[in-house]
């Protein structure tokens, strides 16, 4: 990676931006005899680093297609920050969250990360979910050398196609999740699997990673049906499902999922193959919504369980209480406000990873960002407990990705009941690169 400070820019041989800004700043300071020279973005001042808050820029999907996720990511973030601050903050300093809405848009997302780096001057950026926003924003984080902790579950970080400043330490990536599902599917649901997935990047991960994972378990993908993103009716695709299919593996995401399930129900009636899906499509959607009855008895992947389970740990109970979700995974204030429980735990856990890495690095301010990156890369595992309520995790510093257990839940009596927990080893794969070889 190129170091900006050493690049031979032909435009700043004699009059550099920095010298001009310094000159103007000094003149203005002389004129007003004080440190305040202008409005937002024009103010430069030195922080008292010993007591000033640690600033975390939260790139939130407050609006746009990710808004339902974004709202719960924000609630979880606020709960975690409260817990961290109540316990003394990070390195003895309070933590302040600065929220910017990215509209779930990669163009705006990149602008927001730039704003964090140059206007808000945050210590780290954090919290992005949607893959295209992460990928669109990552170059900016790399250019400003701003550590960027995402909670996206996409494989993009672990693919090592981004840069050394992007981390995903709080949620397992989708490649690992898919791989971890294969042993259970082959052993319990059936050997002949038909995949139905959306014809965009999220679907491609399932298209590409499930067949080899099933093959290793002695099962096969007998058909792959890609559904265009603009589709609103699905009946015409169902005749493509082979008649000897044991399991339909579905990962339809977006508002059309209700129609998808309803039409699948009408197509099969009571005599259907096994169904296995990723809960992503039904996050923030009540599993008892009209039309979803057809899912009764089917199975789902869940990162963290939506419904309280009989064997929940004390840490999980405390986390759910802190975030404010009831036993059904809905808001304690509004039972109809269903959470995105399968993913949002990643925010809580990521913030504790940031805390741990900052403390390991002896982080004092933005000048220590490189040390923070190295300290994060040096982490290897996170024990289950109040900081990691979803479960134990390992972390691979070379690919900046964590790996944890996954849950397989069955829809029973209008609830999701965990019937199997995978091991971390089920989801491990060979690293595809090594970020640590990139310059800081």
């Amino acid at each position: 990676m190129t170091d900006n400070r050493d690049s031979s820019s032909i435009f700043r041989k004699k009059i550099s931006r920095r010298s001009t800004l310094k000159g103007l700043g000094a003149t203005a300071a002389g004129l007003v005899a004080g440190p305040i020279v202008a409005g937002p973005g024009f103010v430069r001042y030195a922080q008292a680093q010993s007591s000033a808050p640690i600033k975390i820029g939260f790139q939130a999907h407050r609006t746009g297609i990710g808004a339902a996720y974004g709202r719960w990511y924000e609630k979880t973030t606020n709960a975690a920050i409260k817990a961290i601050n109540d316990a003394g903050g990070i390195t003895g300093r309070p933590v302040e969250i600065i929220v910017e809405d990215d509209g779930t848009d990669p163009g705006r997302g990149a602008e927001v990360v730039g704003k964090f780096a140059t206007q808000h001057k945050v210590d780290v950026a954090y919290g992005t979910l949607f893959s295209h926003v992460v990928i669109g924003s990552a170059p900016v984080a790399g250019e400003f050398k701003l550590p960027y902790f995402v909670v996206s579950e996409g494989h993009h970080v672990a693919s090592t196609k981004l840069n050394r400043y992007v981390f995903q330490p709080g949620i397992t990536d989708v490649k690992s999740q898919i791989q971890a599902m294969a042993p259970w599917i082959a052993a319990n649901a059936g050997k002949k699997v038909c995949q139905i997935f959306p014809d965009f990047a999220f679907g491609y991960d399932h298209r590409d990673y499930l067949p080899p994972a099933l093959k290793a378990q002695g099962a096969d993908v007998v058909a792959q049906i890609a559904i265009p993103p603009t589709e609103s009716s699905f009946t015409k695709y169902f005749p493509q499902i082979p008649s000897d299919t044991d399991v339909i593996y579905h990962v339809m995401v977006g508002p059309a999922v209700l129609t998808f399930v309803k039409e699948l129900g009408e197509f099969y009636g009571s005599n259907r193959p096994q169904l296995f899906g990723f809960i992503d499509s039904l996050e923030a959607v009540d599993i008892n919504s009209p039309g979803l009855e057809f899912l009764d008895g089917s199975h789902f992947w869940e990162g963290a369980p939506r419904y309280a389970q009989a064997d929940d740990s004390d840490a999980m109970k405390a986390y759910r209480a802190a975030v404010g979700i009831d036993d059904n995974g809905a808001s304690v204030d509004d039972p109809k406000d269903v959470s995105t429980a399968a993913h949002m735990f990643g925010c809580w856990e990521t913030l504790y990873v940031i805390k741990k890495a900052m403390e390991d690095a002896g982080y004092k301010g933005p000048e220590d960002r490189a040390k923070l990156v190295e300290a994060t890369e040096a982490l290897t595992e996170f024990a289950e407990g109040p900081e990691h309520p979803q479960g134990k995790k390992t972390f691979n510093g070379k690919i900046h990705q964590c790996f944890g257990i996954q849950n397989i839940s069955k829809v029973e009596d209008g609830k999701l009941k965990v019937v199997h927990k995978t091991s971390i080893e089920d989801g491990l794969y060979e690293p595809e690169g090594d970020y640590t070889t990139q310059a800081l």
Partner: protein
Amino acid sequence: MKNDDGAGKAITLHAGVIAVLVALNFVLPDYHHGVMARVLVLAVYAMGYNLLFGYAGLLSLGHAMFFAAGLYGAGLTMYHLNWGVPSAFIAGLVAGVLLSLVIGVLALRTKGVAFMIVTMMFAQVAYLLVYYFGTWTRGDEGLVIQQQARAIEFGATRLDLTDPTTRYMAALLLFSVVLVITLIVVRSSFGRVLVAIRENEERTKMLGYDTFANKLAAMVASGAICAAAGAAYVILFGYVGSTLASVQYSILPLLWVLLGGAATTLGPLVGTVLMYYLIDGSSDLLKAYLPGWNVSYLGIVGVALILLVLFFPKGLLGTVRDRFARWLP
């Protein structure tokens, strides 16, 4: 319009704007410096749109396909073929020229609302093609062009386009070239024919002009400029993804141009700058005064645009031209 009177003023004004933008490189704080680099590239996109919409009077709702042609023409060649910046930029430009030529030949058989619909549908086809070729484009997720690839080397000198100053100046160079080209075009006889077509195509035909050929030339020039902006976007900011080819990015240049003033050479810049800060400021205002309402910043933008259409239907510079400066090109 007395053109001879206006020529000197117009040249002075445009040179002055470029000089101010050069000066801003040295005085803008980091955040606004970064914003302006992005705005200058998007303003080029708006200028390309303005050439067709403002001057030739052809309202396209599908210009994201030309922006995307440049974006993917440059981005895919850099990502998959490891092409250098200059050749990738040319690839993007050529993709935009070819696409606008083909689309122009087909879409210019229609007029008015039909033209809007046809361009929108072609853009939708282009958008879905990004998904169809997802193996190479990674669809909605898109691709990142690594920092080390975004540089130009002249012998021993390496021009790192991710350096904030270099990036700003590269964006300004593109902007200035396109601004000058636009100024020359709109003051040329070709530009006057386009305005004549906009005002009354039948009469222009009766005067002996081949209106189809002129409109096609405008379409290709517009497509080429938009593609140049797309290619510059991926080279300078390192990301290519299908969102940038979506219908939203067909509407945005229309809004920028309407805000700044259609058929004014500087309107696209004014509109893009104002819209950026409107969106940026809206987020802060909403956060400060309507916390928890979850109102999109686009809502504020929508209200602003309604007010604009009601009170400044010709955009800001269009109104300035009507009231104060008839010479404004």
